[in-house]
């Protein structure tokens, strides 16, 4: 999903910049435009098809899912699939857990990465290079490699089956620090100096000058983070053994187990419930994200 939209955004940027070369021979220009357009359409198809498939399947009856050739639009959409998926487990609980965890992670990350990125971007302190190097290294370590010690540590703290256990490991984000540091570095020094002359405290400089300037980047990161943790399957699987902290992706995966047979229609309905919040958030943040990709610093 997120890849799909990012690619579309990038495609659009690329398309726009190609469009700028209007001084080129008109014919060649038209040809390039046509190729661009076809390319974009292909991209849309590649990413939209599975999605359409999911929606279509979620509205079919069991036998209809098996029909070949498949029917794209079911004759009698079965809306009960959604309620069936929802009631196949304590889905309200899953949903609340997912929201609480993804939102808390995001809030904590904002709290940690903004000051960290600001410090790395704007101050040369003893060991700043080394520290930043360490942050960057964590980007290269796959989480599967270190999940065991983290799991042991957290279980020693009695955090299994708790929200905190699902939140704490992600309280900061190396990717976020990196991304934000780059954005902060582009802010001209004079702006900060002007703020200093305006008697602004450091936190005011951050909140009133820096953060608004990098808002598109921040929103993009927030979205990536939210989606990643909303969809996360691995860590909740490791950290939960009962329903108290279990999240939506786990609940949906369980649909398959419960029924024994692959009830694709119910599963797809569950998946749709899972991605719907993301779609809604994305819908509202879309413009900001595209801006973040065409973001070329402060003019």
């Amino acid at each position, binding site marked *: 999903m997120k890849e799909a939209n990012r690619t579309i955004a990038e495609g659009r940027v690329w398309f726009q910049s190609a469009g700028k070369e209007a001084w080129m021979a008109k014919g060649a220009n038209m040809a390039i435009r046509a190729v661009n357009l076809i390319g974009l359409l292909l991209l849309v198809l590649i990413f939209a098809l599975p999605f359409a498939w999911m929606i279509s399947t979620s509205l079919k009856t069991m036998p209809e899912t098996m029909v070949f050739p498949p029917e794209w639009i079911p004759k009698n959409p079965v809306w009960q699939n959604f309620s069936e998926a929802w009631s196949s487990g304590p889905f309200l609980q899953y949903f609340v857990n997912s929201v609480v965890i993804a939102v808390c992670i995001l809030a904590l990350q904002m709290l940690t990465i903004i000051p960290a990125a600001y410090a790395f971007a704007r101050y040369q302190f003893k060991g700043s290079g080394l520290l930043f190097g360490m942050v960057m290294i964590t980007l290269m370590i796959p989480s599967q490699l270190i999940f065991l010690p983290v799991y042991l540590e957290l279980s020693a703290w009695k955090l299994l089956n708790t929200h905190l256990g699902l939140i704490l490991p992600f309280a900061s984000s190396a990717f976020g620090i990196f991304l934000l540091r780059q954005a902060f570095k582009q802010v001209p020094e004079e*702006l900060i100096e002007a703020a200093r*002359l305006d*008697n602004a405290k450091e936190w005011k400089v951050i909140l009133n000058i820096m953060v608004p*300037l990098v808002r598109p980047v921040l929103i993009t990161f927030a979205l990536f983070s939210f989606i990643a943790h909303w969809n996360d399957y691995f860590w909740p699987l490791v950290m939960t053994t009962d329903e108290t902290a279990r999240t939506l992706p786990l609940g949906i995966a369980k649909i398959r187990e419960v029924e024994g047979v692959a009830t694709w229609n119910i599963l797809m309905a569950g998946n749709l419930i899972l991605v719907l919040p993301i779609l809604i958030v994305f819908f509202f943040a879309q413009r900001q994200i595209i801006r973040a990709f065409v973001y070329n610093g402060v003019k």
Partner: protein
Amino acid sequence: MMAKIELKNIGKKFKDEEVIKNLNLTIEDGSFTVLVGPSGCGKSTTLRMIAGLDKQTSGDILIGGRSVNHIAPGLRDVAMVFQNYALYPTMTVRENIEFGLKNRKVPKQERDTLIHDISEIVGLTSYLNKKPQMLSGGQRQRVALARAMVKQPKVFILDEPLSNLDAKLRNQMRTELIQLHRRLGTTFVYVTHDQVEAMSMGDVIVVMNQGVIQQAASPAKLYGDPENLFTAQFIGTPAMNILNFSEVQGLHIPAAERIGYLGFRPEHVLMKQDLHREGFTLDGEIVTRESLGAETIYQIKSKAGVFFVKTFLEPMEMNSQIKVTIPYEQLYYFAPDGQRIRGIEAREKSLSFVGGK
């Protein structure tokens, strides 16, 4: 609210590079002081030290008699206008102006009146709710000024505030700044590397070169009575002509061995021979003629070197061979190290001299 600025034995190093060397300067309260000098001579650095954005490596800075060495930029009662304005891009004009007031916890009502008054003065009232990106260069400049003025600082610091404007707007803003200074009566410290700007705006001009003050004086004094070669050549267009004294013939001067260079201004050269003025004469050949309307500038090649002549409202000289005269009192003498030598007076053929010290 006294705001005399005193810089005492200021030195500034970046890493090992010494940028300012033992600088001493007093900027009088209420003056319009202009720092001028070639690029990289340390003007901005000096300003930034006064504002507190850079810390001097050695020496003391006093504002209004109070040492500000350890006082944060925001608490020095100094407002700065940056060359590229440095307006906060995400804030509206109003918020830009208001930011400093909010940080100083000025009550809302007072803020509103201040903003209202200031935007009236600089003519921004109808733009208050726009973002800086939507404004023209001149309007941004005004916002920057308003943002500085609203804090009612003791000192205004302006670092090449007009260099991003086109020529016409620059002239207009120059006049407005002079009026603003009269109106506020606050100390202005202004940096430019445009000597015309400096001459037209400053009460006091501080000429700097390579981190050292060459001369600090009024525009008239700088022009008429330069301390050294650098100042003499920096002020005036075209610059003062400088001839190597050893190549100059026909000047009879006592103690001539002390002199390294002879200087005279292009506008003091007389091209007409019928004048009964005593002076130093030079034979030469006109190499180029350049008419600027009322003025004409000639480049003349003589045995003693190439020099420029500027005439005003005179018909263009068409002969190529020419004899020019520079009145004795318009000659400047400099030692080999560039320092001005005063009190020398040349006399035609006569060997007597007056007042040499």
